[in-house]
């Protein structure tokens, strides 16, 4: 089924890179949670290891099914995904001011994490049939815009700002890739300008006060409502105090003394950077860069347009998360609360990222296959 001989050395390296990042993530999670997790049934880091195990299974499973098949199913996946997003708004579990999760007993499903992959599938399917030199017409842009718009509004309603922004980003990158006719560009700009006040109104009204504060705090840190700048400040102190060589495992005073909130989820990079220093940051960024590079390479060598768009969709998702999460911890992006792919604790994030990577491998191993 899986054409094993197509897995090149390069792909083996890629899998090693992924495992290294995952390992560094578990290590960081372990150092900040080993104290508190003694009374829980399962410690946080061992749960993360289980998620990673499941993630690897999902990774190979997604790689095994021909991506043309996945694209064929994408309308159904899309309908199911949107239905789940609506279900979340109706019966979802609320946590930290947002309604994001469906309780399945053993697992809290977060449909907004999965909808990103589904949106990548439907967009890639649509764009792959309309790829030509002149670019898209206005009419051709309407359907994908609506297709992204529906889940985008639904996740905003939860509210889940991070997912909404990544959907927008993926859409923008794919549109950039396929190109627009000059008339379409002009029309889009005009329409955007006209629609902006309304969109902004909707956008602003669904945000929780703390989210508005974060945005305001980012645009104008001097205002800094509710001291949200506190997170960013403590994160900067943690990273900066790591210096060149870092403080060593368990040596991070910021994270160990709990000055740093969310050390195992959104701010896991700060924990890592405090312990490993600039040297570690450099190493980690190189690992992530190798991952992205491999993704772009997959797109470059893909057999058909569908493969290109799928690969670029996954890559842009990863790049967005890396840039926003790490930027946030470094104090150069707003605190929007997105996970760091492969490192932050969380089943949904690990599984969806691994699925995305599986999709990349999927495209890679089928680049020489004839279409049947």
């Amino acid at each position, binding site marked *: 089924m899986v054409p094993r001989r197509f897995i090149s050395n390069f792909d083996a390296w890629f899998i090693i890179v992924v495992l290294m990042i995952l390992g560094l993530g578990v290590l960081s999670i372990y150092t900040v949670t080993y104290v508190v997790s003694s009374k829980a049934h399962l410690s946080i880091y061992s749960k993360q290891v289980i998620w990673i195990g499941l993630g690897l299974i999902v990774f190979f499973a997604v790689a095994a099914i021909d991506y*043309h098949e996945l*694209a*064929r199913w994408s309308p159904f996946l899309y309908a199911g995904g949107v239905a789940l997003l609506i279900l979340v708004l109706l019966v979802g579990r609320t946590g930290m*001011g947002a309604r994001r999760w469906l309780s399945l007993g053993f697992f809290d499903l977060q449909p907004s994490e999965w909808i990103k992959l589904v949106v990548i599938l439907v967009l890639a*399917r649509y764009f*792959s*049939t309309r*790829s030509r*030199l002149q670019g898209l017409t206005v009419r051709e842009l309407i359907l994908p815009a609506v297709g992204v718009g529906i889940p985008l509004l639904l996740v905003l309603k939860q509210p889940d700002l991070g997912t909404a922004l990544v959907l927008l980003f993926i859409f923008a*990158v794919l549109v*950039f*890739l396929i190109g627009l006719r000059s008339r379409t560009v002009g029309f889009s700009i005009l329409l955007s300008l006209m629609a902006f006040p309304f969109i902004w109104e909707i956008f602003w009204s669904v945000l929780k006060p*703390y989210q508005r504060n974060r945005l305001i705090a980012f645009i104008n840190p*001097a205002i*800094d*409502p*509710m*001291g949200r*700048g*506190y997170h960013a*400040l403590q994160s*900067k*102190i*943690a*990273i*900066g*105090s*790591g*210096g060149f060589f870092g403080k060593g495992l368990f040596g991070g*005073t910021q994270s160990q*003394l*709990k*000055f740093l909130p969310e050390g195992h989820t959104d701010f896991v990079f700060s924990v890592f*950077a405090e312990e490993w220093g*600039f040297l570690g*940051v*450099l190493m980690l*960024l190189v690992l*992530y*860069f190798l991952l*992205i*590079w491999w993704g*772009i390479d997959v*797109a*470059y060598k893909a*057999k*058909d*347009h*569908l493969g*290109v768009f799928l690969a*670029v969709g996954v*890559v842009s998702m990863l*790049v967005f998360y*890396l*840039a926003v999460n790490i*930027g946030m911890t*470094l*104090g*150069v992006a707003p605190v929007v609360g997105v996970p760091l792919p492969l490192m932050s604790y969380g089943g949904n994030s690990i599984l969806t990222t691994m699925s995305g990577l599986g999709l990349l491998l999927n495209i890679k191993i089928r680049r020489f296959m004839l*279409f049947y």
Partner: protein
Amino acid sequence: MDLYTSSDNPRELQNRLGYLMIGIVAIFVALLLRAWYLQITKGNYYREQSENNRVRVVSIQPSRGLIFDRHGELLANNVPSFNLYLVLEDIADKKALLDELARLIQMDRAEMDRKIRSRKNNVPYMPVKIKDGLSLKEVALIESHRMDLAGTLLEPEPQRNYLYGSLAAHLLGYVGEISPAQMQESDNSEVLPGTSVGQNGVEKTYDIHIRGEVGQKIIEVDAGGHEMKVLRVQEPASGNDLYLTIDLNVQKAAEEALGKDAGTIVAINPRNGEILAMASHPAFDPNQLSRSLSPADWEALASDPSHPLTNRATQGQYPPGSTFKLVVSSAALESKEVKADEQINCTGGLLFGRRVYKDWKRGGHGLMDLHSAIVQSCDVYFYEAGRRVGIDRLADYAFRYGLGQPTGIELTSEKSGNVPTPQWKMRAKGEPWYPGETLSASIGQGFVTVTPIQLANLIGTVAMSGVRYQPHLVKAIRDRATGRLFEFPPVQIGRVVLAEETFNTIRQGLSGVVSEPHGTGAAARSKIISIGGKTGTAQVVEMKAGIETKSLPKEFQDHAWFIAFAPVEDPQIAVAVLIEHGGHGGETAAPPAKRVIEEYLKNGAPQIHQQL
């Protein structure tokens, strides 16, 4: 159309992939440069900050919204208060510091230890409040010893201040530090530990509107924990202001009229359900409760046998006594079991089964029609009326008037009273209903209990010919940020549908109670306003025949009721007065009712829509 067969290599896309890669490289380089800047360029600065944990976050408490009466008279505001905090991690020698502090501000060491132990969170460097409301002398003492007192923090913070002390204490409530249980409530998800929140009355019910938003300042401190530099400040946002429905002057009149007696007065506008006054004695001083109370003081207050913390208006459940005859009259007339002009002979008692049900007047009232039976509060007449109507229909009318259920006023822990039915008795006592119990219920004794606010609402409903409004305490909320006023419109919650003739007959009876020569409520007669009302006497203990209750100790004497409305021809106010162990309603409960009514109506009927 072939979906995926563009099998030629997508060359035209590859240029764009190149641009994309350039963008990605730029992002990675930017992140790396930023990390370099933080970790290498400013590495020493941040290392120092992390080692000394120089950065602290201090909450700035907001001002709670002000509370006004209906005319904009201030009832509660905030005054500055100096509070003393300890930052445990900054203390070098805890015992020495606490001893020194105990000496300086005369504070019990055990009390200090208790406060330190009670720190719930394990957030390091979170200040723990040790004492609030420090005197200026104590502040000066601590400031002058500041260098020896590393780890102490003096914060000027707003303290709730109730201008009239115990006036309307139960309806205003008080504030206090949020409890761990309250932290779990969804409304309080963003409240930080140590914050003051409403603990009773409208302070509690409307807390989310008036609490404001906590501000924060991020400060850099020296090794002793003293503030050296303010890095960032987020000012707190004041809470919204409350405009209550009560009228300060009427409230004052009610408080004075109650005096030292244990009891309660509720005054309500029957046209919209606005509470005009609500007094409950004995009361407490919310100023005292809003400061941190020692467990001993709290225990003393909570276990005080006179129950000062209980709001008797909404939480006191008493037998209604003869005031219940309004319900019996309604049921008897509507069911046509009794005609208004039918005469029943009162001989001082009614033989029913093997027992004589006695009238309060020895020798009886003679021939009574409904009007004179209400005026003179003839028990025998109502025994007979109740017997004919039966307990089920009596209970039905009681429920229609809102008895047996909370009124839904915006105060916590409101009681519902009890309207007995045979089913209820079987459930609660496991016994069948005895026919004689219907007779007891007909004069408001036995198992019937009501709260004073229910009775105020009941007579208001009679005054308004059956229209019932939701009693409420807040007239409007003013948004501090925009200055906009959000008014609460009156809410009609139902209508007791009786013939207008029935209401007229009852109202004429109520008017006679006060104005006619034999009326039991003559003490409420006013020179300036026509008042209608009904007296009531609620038995505390069952009396053996022939014993004058007045000769008994105070705690065995009956509770006195008077419920009233005025003016009779154009009702503007409904009042319920209950004096615990006050004896006969006509003597002790009627004068306070008159006083409150006169205070409210002395300048003629007030406009319903007043300028705030």
